[in-house]
């Protein structure tokens, strides 16, 4: 028995090492592609699509702090990207701040505002939480449309360009592409740090069974609120950065449930519980969206495509693409023994062995 299992263990670690090597290669290849993208892009339009996809990735990762760790699905997360956009713009226009300072301060402001919002929303779970998140973004839409003195109302708000007018458009696209990618990387690093920490373990327990987690001593409300604020911060940064690039804010697009649903779909498709899932989802869905918008132009057909895609993912692939690939890969993993129903007798036998071994050692 011992020799067989240790032999199998060797094979397992051999497989794991190969897997790790494979993942590293893929990661390096992907990173190279991403960094080289602006040079490789044939024209400014493709480059701008790249910026849009990078922005989606940033938004999806920001959303996934809450969705992935706690399992709370927010359909109204565009509230925070929208607030980030307006905060950045208004701090520049009315506050006279430097654009990058405005971006940071604006995001911090949104994080602060997210505290009372979180205190109210996180008191409820499941369906009620979703409803509240939708209500949040709808009310912000209403307010921003009506409060024209501040937000420009439905006629929109022009955001001053941080790089000045003499920097050509392709150059602007390239710079903002790298900026968005940098934001994604930073957000992923924070996500990774939380994932491996005890705080993250508590959050994941909340996702699996919130009451059970609480009974084990996890301060669930506090934990949920902290990760909610972190999520709002990164989402606001993404919104503000996009505002600086796009140069124009319209309430309908800033506080859009649709964009909120993109964030959900992308994270869900890529894999809500994985680090790179939202990024993968953003690339796939983002590309598909831009393709449909391009092909079908002004008709609302891309909504149909989006709706169908979301429906398919929910019905057939609720865990997402990356986990599906993960379990496919695991099929090839050499196993020592399958998990089988251990009879009570075997269980007793095993624990007797352990006790006898302990007796001997004493």
């Amino acid at each position, binding site marked *: 028995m011992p020799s067989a299992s240790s032999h199998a263990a060797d094979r397992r670690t051999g497989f794991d090492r190969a897997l790790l090597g494979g993942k590293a290669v893929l990661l390096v290849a992907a990173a190279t592609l991403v960094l080289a993208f602006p040079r490789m892009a044939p024209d400014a339009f493709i480059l701008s699509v790249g910026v849009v996809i990078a922005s989606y990735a940033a938004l999806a990762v920001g959303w996934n702090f809450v969705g992935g760790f706690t*399992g709370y*699905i927010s*359909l109204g997360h565009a509230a925070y990207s929208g607030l980030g956009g307006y905060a950045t713009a208004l701090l520049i226009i009315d506050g006279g701040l430097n654009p990058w300072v405005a971006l940071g301060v604006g995001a911090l402001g949104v994080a602060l505002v997210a505290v009372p919002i979180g205190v*109210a*929303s996180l*008191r*409820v*779970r*499941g*369906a*009620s939480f*979703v*409803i*509240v998140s*939708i*209500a*949040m973004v*709808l*009310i912000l839409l*209403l*307010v921003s*449309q*009506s409060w024209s003195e501040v937000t420009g109302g439905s006629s929109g708000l022009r955001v001053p360009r941080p790089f000045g007018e003499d920097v050509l458009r392709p150059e602007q696209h390239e710079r903002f592409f790298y900026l968005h990618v940098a934001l994604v990387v930073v957000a992923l690093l924070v996500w990774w740090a939380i994932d491996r920490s005890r705080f993250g373990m508590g959050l994941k327990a909340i996702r699996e069974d919130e009451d059970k987690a609480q009974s084990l001593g996890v301060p669930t409300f506090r934990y949920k609120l902290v990760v909610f604020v972190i999520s709002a911060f990164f989402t606001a940064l993404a919104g503000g950065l996009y505002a600086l690039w796009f140069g124009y804010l319209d309430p309908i697009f800033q506080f859009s*449930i*649709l964009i909120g*649903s993109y964030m*959900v779909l992308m994270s*869900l498709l890529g894999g809500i519980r994985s680090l790179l899932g939202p990024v993968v989802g953003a690339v796939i869905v983002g590309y598909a969206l831009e393709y449909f918008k391009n092909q079908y132009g002004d*008709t*609302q*057909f*891309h*909504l*149909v*495509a*989006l*709706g*169908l*895609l*979301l*429906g398919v993912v*929910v*019905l057939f692939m*609720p865990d997402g693409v990356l986990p599906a690939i993960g379990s496919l890969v695991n099929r090839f993993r050499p196993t020592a023994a399958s998990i089988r129903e251990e009879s009570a007798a075997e269980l007793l036998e095993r624990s007797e062995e352990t006790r006898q071994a302990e007796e001997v050692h004493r």
Partner: protein
Amino acid sequence: MSGPLLLQSIILGLLLGGLYALLAAGLTLYFGVMRVVMIAHSAFLILAAYLAWYFHRETGIDPLFSLVITVPLFFVTGVAMQRLLLSRLRPATLTMMSVLLTFAIALTIEGMLGYVFSGTQRRIQLGYSGSNFEVFGANIAAVKLIAFGLAALALLGLYLVMKKTRFGQALRATIQHPEAARLLGINTDRIAGYGFGIGLATAAIGGTALSLDSTIYPSLHWHWIGPLMAIIVIGGLGSIPGAAIAAMVLGVSQSLLQVPMGTTWAQTVFYLALFATLMIRPQGFFGGRLAQRF
């Protein structure tokens, strides 16, 4: 606000509340039978409105007659949706996934409407579109009264079915305690399907009522889902009477606020009430024992 204006606002609010009540009742049914948050409810509402408009445009007959087609059609669609799509979802993550699935359905409907009918705003013009009635000294548009009448009739019908029929009893049992209902021999899966069908039928009626009086466009459903969701949370998730009461209260409030504050700001009353509910009594105010903390 002057006396007659106040009275008019209240009456309009009651009429509006009636429509909200019918729609919120439908929304509550979905949640009651299956713990599903049916975001597509308002999208079906708008779809029904479009169908009524299209019916009127093509046949010239009063759009109210489109109910003959839309109510059974929507009922069947509701049953089909429950049996074929929603029952596929895993029970562990049902609520969450149902939100996303019904959201997807809503997007698809909006997209199809935009594709088929384009984004142009539509409005039905009827012979009696402009006529008014005197109600307690206030001037009320005939179409609003008809819409209210329709909603009230439908609600009455729903009440009678729920309280007086065998089916209604089975439906109530399924909502209150599905396991016990099953032990009593009730086919809860089939009942859930019918519950869904009824819910969608209310959307058909509500949509037709809406078409008489409003300008419709594909993305209009977003204006309705927010207030409706707020209503059912405030009323208490899972309680039809709770939803009806909350609907009336909020309808009147919205109407009263419309004069001093304008339409857009008046809509915020729903969200303010929602947040107040969350802070004070998250399980809702009017639902009583039936309301769930969700």
